[in-house]
């Protein structure tokens, strides 16, 4: 079951199409740079790359190892990217949702971007060696319940249709499992998880939505959240993080991927996404929306919890 291979044969053609398009837009001067993936030193692995010359377009690839959400390079990790001119960017469906969210939050402008969407059947889980074949067992948990294999609204998408088998939904199952617990059991579970946290803030660093220049949790006047990696501070940090991402996080799961302590961070985000879907029928998608679910209201919103 777990060894069931997932068809990634289109990735070669996708790579070719990306290279072609990148070459074209760079040479025609459409964009100043293209942010994409390139092969890295280790066999089969990939890493983000910024291509500014048409000649370098051949470096660009797409494979099951292209796990990163490149959106973050357009905001706080923008240093290597030219300041002026349109930027091309290679996006998977999940990455595109983040980009769309950032547009809604005035961090990016659509007209300044050239979106190269990738038809994606899934990428590898963070724990798997990069040259492993993509199977039901090696695929990243977020891809198991992906509803955005084919990004829409991009400037260019290679005409390939990814084959996507139905997989067991990891997060939904985990959420259901936790919801069935008693509060005390849930507390014990999260306490165990958060206890591991070393406050390296990799989750914050990699998150496209954590674009604040000065994080609330770093402030000391007042100190809202204890900064040392003690259980109390860890707990508070993760609650604040989940709350700040509620209604914004689109599920790229980068936080979870980069967490050195393997804390299931995306689980919190998915739980919040589920609640907001149930409460306000809001889901992160491909459409730019001016106001997220927590920036607006309806007079008839549910208030059954308020006496």
């Amino acid at each position: 079951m777990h060894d069931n291979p997932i068809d990634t044969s289109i990735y070669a053609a996708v790579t070719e199409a990306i290279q072609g398009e990148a070459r074209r837009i760079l040479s025609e001067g459409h964009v100043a740079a293209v942010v994409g993936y390139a092969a890295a030193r280790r066999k089969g692995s990939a890493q983000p790359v910024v291509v500014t010359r048409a000649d370098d377009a051949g470096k660009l690839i797409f494979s099951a190892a292209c796990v990163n959400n490149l959106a973050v390079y357009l905001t706080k990790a923008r240093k290597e990217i030219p300041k002026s001119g349109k930027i091309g960017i290679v996006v998977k469906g999940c990455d595109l949702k983040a980009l769309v969210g950032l547009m809604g939050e005035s961090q990016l402008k659509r007209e300044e971007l050239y979106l190269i969407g990738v038809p994606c059947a899934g990428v590898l889980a963070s724990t798997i060696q990069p040259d492993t074949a993509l199977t039901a067992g090696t695929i990243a948990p977020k891809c198991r319940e992906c509803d955005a294999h084919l990004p829409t609204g991009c400037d260019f998408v290679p005409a390939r249709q990814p084959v996507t088998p139905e997989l067991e939904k990891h997060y939904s199952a985990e959420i259901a499992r936790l919801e069935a617990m008693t509060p005390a059991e849930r507390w014990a579970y999260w306490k165990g998880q958060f206890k591991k946290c070393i406050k390296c803030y990799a989750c914050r660093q990699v998150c496209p939505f954590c674009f604040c220049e000065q994080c609330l949790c770093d402030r000391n006047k007042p100190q809202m959240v204890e900064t040392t990696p003690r259980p109390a501070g860890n707990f508070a940090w993760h609650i604040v993080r989940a709350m700040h991402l509620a209604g914004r996080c689109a599920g790229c799961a980068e936080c979870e991927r980069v967490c050195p302590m393997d804390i299931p961070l995306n689980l919190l985000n998915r739980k919040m996404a589920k609640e907001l879907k149930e409460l306000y029928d809001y889901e992160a998608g491909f459409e730019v929306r001016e106001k997220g679910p927590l920036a607006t209201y309806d007079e008839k919103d549910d208030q059954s919890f308020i006496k």
Partner: protein
Amino acid sequence: MSRIGVFICHCGENISRTVDVERVAAEVGKLPGVAFATDYKYMCSDPGQGLLKKAIREERLSHVVVAACSPRMHEKTFRKAVESAGLNPFLCEMANIREHCSWVHQDRKEATVKAIELVGMMVERVKKNRVLPTITVPVTKRALVIGGGIAGIQAALDIADAGYEVILVEREPSIGGHMAQLSETFPTLDCSQCIMTPKMVDVANHPRIRLYTYAEIERVEGYIGNFQVTVRRKARSVIEEKCTGCGVCMEKCPVKKIPNKFDQNLGMRPAIYVPFPQAVPNTPVIDRENCIKFKTGKCGVCRKVCGPGAVDYEQEDRLIVEPVGAIVVATGFDLYSIEEKPKGSPIKGYGEFGHGRIPDVIDGMTFERLASASGPTGGKILRPSDGREPKQIVFIQCVGSRAREKGISYCSKICCMYTAKHTMLYHHKVHDGQAYVFFMDARTPGKNYDEFWRRSIEEEEAVYIRGMVSRLYQKGDKIVVMGSDIAVGVQVEIEADMVVLATAVQPQKGADALAQKLGISYDKYNFYSEAHAKLRPVECATAGIYLAGACQGPKDIPDTVSQASAAAAKVIILFARDQLEREPIVARVREAGCVGCFYCKKVCPYGAVEEKEIRDRQGNLVKVVAYVNPGVCGGCGTCQATCPSKSVELDGYTDEQIVAMIEAL
């Protein structure tokens, strides 16, 4: 290091009875930063404030905490005192140890501990308080008056006479309100219309009053001195500027039999109509629901006969925006009906009185129309059912009022007097008739009021029976009234020809919706709440909005007129200044932290957040950040709670201040 002074008030015995104030002073005196702590009998009194000022000077205090009553009561008082002693007023905070402590707890030990903690929290908070400069805003010297009854008319005339422009908005086609419907008024029995219509004409002719009838408030934005009010002028279908008021259209209108609301549906009117002959403006309105032209597209007689060509079937509602500096709300009252109420309604009807289905059981306002010389019967008291003159008439007071069981527990204040008046009017008109009044108590405080009531009994021969009626029912063409006279302890049964119910005074329908637009508070009956029951009876808690008349609570005409003039005076006081100081509780953006996500802008209910470009010295755009317009900001702080990086802060309620309080727990 701060030098905080803490002043603990005994409030006579109100606080000290339950809270050991001396111990509170001793305990908080030990808190770090507290340089001075004392208790005093009445902090708000002149010597109390003197003590405070003296301590500020002598002890070189940097901050002040007054532990006393609710800040809603005396925060202004103490901040003013602090200011006069040379400190910024916003360095003074109050701890509420009366309403939230001594009055709601009995255990002295518990209350004292709680008081110490409450004061401790405020001490921590005040340490984080910052000097806030007062903000001044300009004043638009125009007033809006909502409601064209006697209250609105009086307020509008007074403000206009003082030299300011007034916008008067009335929902109905004519101003005049309920007072125009009355026949005579107590306690002098002078004709209501005789004293009312000249005032209505004054309004129409006043150069500084702009009158919008058949209009409603659509939206209110802004704040004291600077409101933007959107008025919806409903389509009248008659152009006011062209209409001469000749009345030919009304004569020729083929639809004639529409019950006239002004006559309590006893009289009839055409589809194009003025509600009553003395209407101001004397411009008809087309009732589109009943007009043949609007229902079928045919007819059009009124347009044909209108000489000046004032009839305009295509007219649409118009929205007009008026900038004003102050608002007087004078929306008046409505009468309770005994009809069956929808299930679940907090107010109930009177099944025992027939739920309004017995035709000759009427309410007081209907009786007014019957008694009015300009009414549907020309001033004759006649039964609605068969037009006969009632020889036995029963008046029942307190119908709906003082009736917890029906959902209204207040006294409607005016019924005792108008029922006495009704018995007199009846006696004057039906000499061989007998009036009976069932009453619980007679409430006649007012100049010449009790004398008036006694006259109805002693000279006009009304029979007053102390005791509420249990039930009414139709028996043949009579109405059987089952009551009791509790003075004698026997049941009383009267076979009456007509029964007049003194039904309760309620706020106008839609009073709650208007309050929400205005942002003013109202009680559970929808009466508007004054800022203070005794000391600020005509002001709303929301600055710049004033109350006049029965919208604030049941009132008779003299009280209404007094309150209207008082509200006008408040407006005139406001307009006497060119600049207003407003509380500096506004949001400010910390530009260094702002990343321009504009969540604040999305949630701001006032539209106070603007986008501001930050450029370097060369003029290159560095970033776009949020900017809060302090004149527009309402001070709710929703922006701060929403801001992910907390780069916008509400002065007076900063995170530092709040966290300091939580940490003091």
